[in-house]
């Protein structure tokens, strides 16, 4: 059990991916995360109220059920370790309640388009007046300033506008996206460190702050060397596929089995000769054209064909074992299910077995760390819309029954989507 952040309360107004990842991760170490939605605007992850057959929202066993917004898989997966309340923030009485929550919270985090919080009266200046030492984290596509501050994006947009797509693609072909909205989890993971650093300073000096995080700017950070190269005299191609100038050959090779592949990466001449021996192609070891890494890089296309000849009739798992035993970097290209069953990730306790009351059993993504002094908490399954209203509004804020029921009947709070 981790009680590292036992006394930490986070107001979480984020939705979709990046922000929810941040609060999920901090939640694994004991923070109380209060996720605020409204019954008229739920987290997009919860999908439509009445899904059509064409919906792209994912449900357990493809069955939306009676309350689809509570079992939508994307919501289930990233809103673990949180309390869920609903509050209509455009309503005056709703605002009063969030102001009360701000008074007793340590962190306020949101990822709306930049000017939404101004409209809601929840910008940093307003929030700071209520709680001067709050750590306010704003995660937005383009940052909180600049003419484009209200531009919106998803991870797939950021891959483009942050330049990641310009270095992702097959050798000398066209730019491609990751299909996994790579910048989103990066921003989510990064914000954990920034927010906690700000909290650490607050513990030491009592000072809160305003963190203005641009998702695009973090994405550009991931290609820094390419930004510099574009200003130098030497410009080399940016789309390299799976190849690498200092590991040659390096690539992804077809194996026996439906869409089965293996990665192989050769770091030096010695490893090359080991690979040639294993492939039973000892004649290649002394071949002049393949002598150095540079030579092999230059001739990678023909080398790839030779390797594929050898791998294509073999199983990817057997090849991985064989090559790793010979101290060669190689690994299977794991499919979704294989990653969940992967013995290494399971031995690192990366997946948690979760039994969600309505969505059933599944394996949950957790954290990428192992600490020697403490462990993360077990996953607390995602909550239903408004599930914790009573706990927060009555037990914590102390609303009496009259007031609570009044807010309920006026849809300021509520457990069902409007």
């Amino acid at each position: 059990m981790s009680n590292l952040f036992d006394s930490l309360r986070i107001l979480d107004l984020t939705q979709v991916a990046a922000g929810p990842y941040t609060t999920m991760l901090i939640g694994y170490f004991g923070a109380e995360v209060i996720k605020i939605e409204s019954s008229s605007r739920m987290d997009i992850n919860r999908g439509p109220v009445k899904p059509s057959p064409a919906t792209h929202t994912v449900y357990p066993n493809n069955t939306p059920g009676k309350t689809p917004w509570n079992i939508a898989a994307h919501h289930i997966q990233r809103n673990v370790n949180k309390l869920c309340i609903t509050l209509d923030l455009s309503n005056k009485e709703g605002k009063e309640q969030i102001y009360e929550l701000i008074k007793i919270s340590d962190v306020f985090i949101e990822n709306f388009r930049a000017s939404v919080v101004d409209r809601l009266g929840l910008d940093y200046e307003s929030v700071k007046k209520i709680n001067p030492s709050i750590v306010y984290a704003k995660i937005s596509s383009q940052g909180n300033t600049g003419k484009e501050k209200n531009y919106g994006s998803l991870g797939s947009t950021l891959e483009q506008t942050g330049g990641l797509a310009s270095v992702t693609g097959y050798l000398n072909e066209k730019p491609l996206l990751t299909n996994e909205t790579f910048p989103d989890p990066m921003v989510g993971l990064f914000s954990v460190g920034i927010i906690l650093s700000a909290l650490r300073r607050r513990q030491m000096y009592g000072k809160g702050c305003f963190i203005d995080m641009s998702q695009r700017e973090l994405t550009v950070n991931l290609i820094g060397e390419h930004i510099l190269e574009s200003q130098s005299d030497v410009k080399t191609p940016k789309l390299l596929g799976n190849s690498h100038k200092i590991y040659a050959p390096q690539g992804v090779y077809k194996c026996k089995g439906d869409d089965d592949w293996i990665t192989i990466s050769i770091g030096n001449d010695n490893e090359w000769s080991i690979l040639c021996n294993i492939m039973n192609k000892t004649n290649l070891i002394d071949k002049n054209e393949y002598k150095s890494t540079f030579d092999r890089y230059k001739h990678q296309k023909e080398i790839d064909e030779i390797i594929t000849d050898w791998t294509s009739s073999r199983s990817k798992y057997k090849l991985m074992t064989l090559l790793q035993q010979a101290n060669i970097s190689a690994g299977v290209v794991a499919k979704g299910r294989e990653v969940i069953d992967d013995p290494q990730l399971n031995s690192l306790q990366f997946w948690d077995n979760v039994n969600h009351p309505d969505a059933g059993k599944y394996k949950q993504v957790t954290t990428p760390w192992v600490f020697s002094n403490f462990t993360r908490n077990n996953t607390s399954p995602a909550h239903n819309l408004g599930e914790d209203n009573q706990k927060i509004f009555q037990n914590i804020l102390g609303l009496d029954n009259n007031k609570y029921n009044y807010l309920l009947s006026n849809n300021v709070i509520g457990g069902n989507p409007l």
Partner: protein
Amino acid sequence: MLDDLRVIDLSNHVSGSYTSKLLASLGAHVIKVEKPSIGDRSRNIGPFLFKSMYKESSLLFRYLNTGKNSITLDIHTISGQKIFQDLISIADIVIDDTNNELLESHVKVSNPSMILCSISDFGKSGPYSEFKGGDLINQGLSGLLQTMGLPSKEPLKVGGNAGEYAVGISMFSGIVISLFSRDSSSLGNNLVETSGIQTLALAQIHNSINSQFRGQDNIRRESSLLKAKNGWVSMGLAIGSRDDTWQNFCQILEMPELINDERFLSMELRRKNESELNQILKEWVLNQDKEEIYHKLQNISTIAGYVAEPEDLLQSNQLLEREYFNNQEGMLYPGIPFVIDDLRPTLDKAPLLGENNIDIYCNLLGYKLSDVLLLHQSGVV
């Protein structure tokens, strides 16, 4: 925020160097410890500033190591180890991405409250812990590769060194978490580990969902990017737009007949019929400037994008207006990716190999200059 901390950076890969760069951006004092005369591995890895590669011209090194000091030390010699223990005794954090086995015992002896950070491909225990990895291998085992690239071709890795930066980000946040444990207890033994396989498995937000809840593993799919006059764009009409977005878009297109086309009335339908929609848009897009499309479509509340090349980013009004880039010796470096209380931190240029030897050894650790020179002659420093 972290300016009370001193970090010893032993890393030799993108991941660890990016971790300590992020710590430096929050004020931590980072001392990079490099092998005498050889230096950090990335000093010899491109891209390079000049055609004739020499080790002080690696742009990868320069980018990754802004805001740090560099000293040289051979920690595999006996006198080197003694100096290393002195260094450890005045530091708070040591970062290792080379699986240095000596480290743990040194730390135990010299500074039990030190946070020892280990970055590896697969973690320190478990069936793959002895396996040899690397960015491509890690992307494969974590499941990221299988879903990337085109269905007709082999799986494709995320480009550049992005997979390694990811691991660096992971370690950065892991360190800050463990600071809370260190600050509140005197137990010692503060080990924090992260790995390529864990970080990249976390970096997928659809794969584990689809394979478990939909019962289908993610597969590679055709690119949804459309070709514009000078590059690639996505229209962003199928998700996250407003009710009147479609109508406004048809007006920009000058194709009012599409406004009531039943195939495209809602975001859901536009997503379902995306390939038909793209077929119609193809010709229009082909004659437009990519950035003009981006701005036009963003202004009607879509999540449109354009593939920015590095050259485009250097001229992006938004990035320039926010003073994202940091000018060093005439080159624009991507800056620190956050602004705190309206201030964007900046970092000094990366150190030359051993640039801070005298400062660290003499002024900080109190060695005599003559001793440092002797150590230099014997190749320890």
